[in-house]
């Protein structure tokens, strides 16, 4: 049975300051790979921990360059800085990735729905592709924090090549832990890589899954989501038990601009995390 999908605060009511960014100072900026960086931010206008649910996102504003929706990649249980992992692919994200400690960015949020990261005693299969591990990392922290009473946790992570994988130190740590079953694969590899090569949906058939007591969390490129959902359904998971993130379709965060619309859904306002059951028709259509 699927965990209940938490409702987004922004879906319930738009807060009065929903379009006003707050100032955050960059505390740290770590390169993850060739074009992806993890930033640690500290609030200047609202000191204290930044409260959010796993799966939610913020609008990050590089002054003079632009504003973009970026999922939060830090630990929701931590009182430390706000953490975002950003890939430099355009003017705004390049400016954000270039921000040095001490510089100030604008932040508004958090927005959006959340992963079922409580999951209780249910087993959780987390399927991440490429940068999709970043929005899932807060959920992984929560699932790892369930303790002995929680269900089994499996992380299946795929990337294009070894040098593109995110959070290398953390992956090494998780590989040693007994409370998470980690499988990593890459699409192609050269010498020096002794791990698996192949696409991430192929991992799904190799792991133990009890479909009636499992919830799946899937994030990555839409094609990877489609293949992964098909593999999860072949393993017997109900479409209500599969949660997917459509975060690549987020735009203004509050559903005003309409660019996030996918059929009847506004990804910013109603997602970005949905049950697959809710999006199923959209995945099966040739045009939306």
């Amino acid at each position, binding site marked *: 049975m699927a965990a209940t999908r938490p409702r987004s605060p922004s879906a319930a009511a738009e807060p009065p300051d929903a379009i006003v960014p707050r100032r955050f100072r960059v505390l740290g900026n770590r390169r993850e790979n060739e074009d992806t960086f993890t930033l640690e931010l500290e609030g200047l206008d609202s000191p204290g921990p930044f409260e959010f649910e796993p799966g939610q996102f913020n609008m990050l504003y590089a002054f003079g360059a632009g504003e*973009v929706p970026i999922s939060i990649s830090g630990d929701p249980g931590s009182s430390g800085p706000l953490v975002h992992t950003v890939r430099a*692919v355009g003017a705004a994200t390049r400016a954000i990735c270039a921000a040095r400690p001490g510089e100030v960015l604008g932040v508004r949020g958090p927005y959006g729905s959340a992963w079922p990261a409580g999951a209780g005693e249910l087993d959780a299969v987390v399927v991440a592709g490429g940068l999709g591990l970043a929005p899932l990392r807060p959920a992984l922290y929560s699932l790892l924090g369930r303790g002995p009473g929680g269900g089994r946790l499996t992380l299946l992570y795929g990337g294009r090549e070894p040098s593109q994988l995110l959070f290398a130190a953390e992956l090494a740590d998780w590989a040693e832990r007994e409370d998470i079953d980690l499988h990593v694969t890459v699409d192609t*590899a050269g010498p020096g890589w002794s791990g*698996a090569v192949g696409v991430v949906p192929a991992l799904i058939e190799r792991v133990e899954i009890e479909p009636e007591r499992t919830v799946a969390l899937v994030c990555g490129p839409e094609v990877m989501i489609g293949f992964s959902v098909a593999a999860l359904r072949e393993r017997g998971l109900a479409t209500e038990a599969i949660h997917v993130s459509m975060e*690549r379709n987020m735009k203004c965060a509050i559903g005003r601009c309409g660019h996030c619309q996918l059929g009847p859904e506004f990804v910013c306002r109603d997602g970005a995390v949905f049950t697959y059951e809710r999006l199923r028709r959209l995945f099966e259509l040739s045009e939306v």
Partner: protein
Amino acid sequence: MKTIADLLPEIPLFQGLSAEHLELLAGCGTNVVAEEGEYLFREGRTADTFFAIRHGAVGIEVSVPAREPIVVQTLHPGDVAGWSWIFPAQPWSFSGRAIERARAVSFDGACLRGKLEADHELGYELMRRVAIVMAERLRFTRMQLLDVYGRDEAA
């Protein structure tokens, strides 16, 4: 000690086959071990065998002149390697090298072809199952070709 016929049901490809058919197939099989770095089969050589991986991991490689080979896929326990054996005198298109100590059942291709010709019921059933594996490999290969982790147009 387990016989080859005892081992085959551990491989999904053979699960559900009758004991009689398992015995027939087992007659073409032998246990093989490849230490880490050793080849089970080499690109360009005659593909006269078919492997069912029981333990360890095997990398499927493409040779590149003057460079290290590129691994395009890894196979793990329960996976099978090779279908060139279906047709006589075909070369391997890829190499298979153990990336960790691997144990496998190696089937003699000519022996298998003979038994599948003699027993068309078994022949159809095994070919149907091999086709499912091939279709899945093709599906995932297409996904690899899409390079889904490439850069996207974004802000």
